[in-house]
């Protein structure tokens, strides 16, 4: 019997190795998998490359992971916030590499990884500093920049409900990057508010099918 629901949260991330690329869901705090990030901090992996829209807020979650010195590089669209002091400090000290990616390009690059697209031409950022050095092309009257997929070893996500096959639903704007990150990572680990019996999620309402999910943890 397939059962992706794990009993012990620690087991969910035991195999994360130093140098891994980890996608972390969430837009600000909505959809941020706080408990899984705490697990990752406790687990100890370092030299991580993190993919998230932001670079952490205040002292918990992603900010705590960054503050603990575990992150070598971050790919995000909006690192600078009023309470991104851990990021700011390490970035200014040259201890944290930043790859700044426009938000839609970030989303599409993640989607491309999960969808088997090798590269794509996007109009976003053409002619700007963020396209410097990138291949461009004029297609059908418009200028485009070539962008590549972002693959990950792990995706750490927060969803609302899951069944034992790993089918997921989300709550409101906590959905954000989770469905595309689930598909882009080799191992997708999800914390959920509620686990339900198979069949409790209507097949029409599944947002992330279990094919993209490896491990589920219920967080109380």
């Amino acid at each position, binding site marked *: 019997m397939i059962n992706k629901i794990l009993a012990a949260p620690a087991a969910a991330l035991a195999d994360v190795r130093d140098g891994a690329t980890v996608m972390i869901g969430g837009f600000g705090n*909505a959809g941020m998998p706080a408990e899984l990030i705490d697990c990752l901090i406790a687990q100890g992996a370092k030299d991580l490359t993190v993919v998230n829209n932001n670079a952490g807020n205040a002292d918990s979650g992603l900010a705590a992971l960054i503050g603990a010195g575990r992150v070598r590089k971050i790919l995000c669209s*909006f690192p600078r916030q009023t309470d991104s002091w851990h990021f700011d400090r390490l970035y*200014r000290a040259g201890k944290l590499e930043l790859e700044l990616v426009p938000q839609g390009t970030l989303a599409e690059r993640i989607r491309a990884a999960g969808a088997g697209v090798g590269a794509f031409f996007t109009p976003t950022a053409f002619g700007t500093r963020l396209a410097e050095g990138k291949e461009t092309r004029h297609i059908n009257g418009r200028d485009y920049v070539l962008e590549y997929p972002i693959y990950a070893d792990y995706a750490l996500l927060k969803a609302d409900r899951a069944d034992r096959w790993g089918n997921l639903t989300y709550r409101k*704007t906590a959905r954000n*990057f989770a469905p595309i990150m689930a598909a882009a990572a080799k191992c997708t680990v999800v914390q959920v508010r509620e686990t339900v019996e198979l069949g409790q999620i209507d097949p029409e309402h599944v947002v992330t099918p279990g094919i993209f999910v490896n491990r589920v943890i219920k967080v109380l």
Partner: protein
Amino acid sequence: MKRLDRNQIAARVARDIPEGAYVNLGIGLPTLVASHLPQDREVIIHSENGILGLGPKPAPGQEDEDLIDAGKAPATILTGGAYFHHADSFAMIRGGHIDICVLGAFQVSAAGDIANWHTGEADAIPAVGGAMDLAAGAKQVFVTMEHLTKQGESKVVERCSYPLTGLRCVTRIYTDLAVIDVKSDGLHLVEIVAEGLSFDELQRLNGVALKYRAAA
């Protein structure tokens, strides 16, 4: 001369947003546009983080941490709204499905280039968010800004000196002094909004040449 304040600029923008439009409002002044839309006009607001039908701020105590807007402030959703993920959300933007986006800016050029994401200072931590996607993707890009810097220099310029957000994308500029259309042959004054401001004085302040054809 009496300049428009931020709410008056937002109200002036709101006048130009038609019934049924799909609109994305940037953070700051653009966000104010929502509260100036007429109650009887249905406009559907898109929020990059996965909402169509963004509603007003929730009442105190009614906030939901899973329901926020693109500025990460507590939000609501209107009856008829929809949630979706980030790739779908930016497909809407990049694919030309947003009728109007309203952005703030440091500078706008006569060709419609916009600079709004980076001051160009060497030690600044850069952050771009969805600005470049909106600039490149929305059918119409409206810019709201004060017309002049604190030093009195025009933010409407021949060429932007700040790092660009997007090229040739701005269609209309709303400032505390005027409303200006960006067309292929240059800038066209639509309306002077500051009371007591003459065309000649606006032209002097604006720097870049303004075309104007008085209503017949």
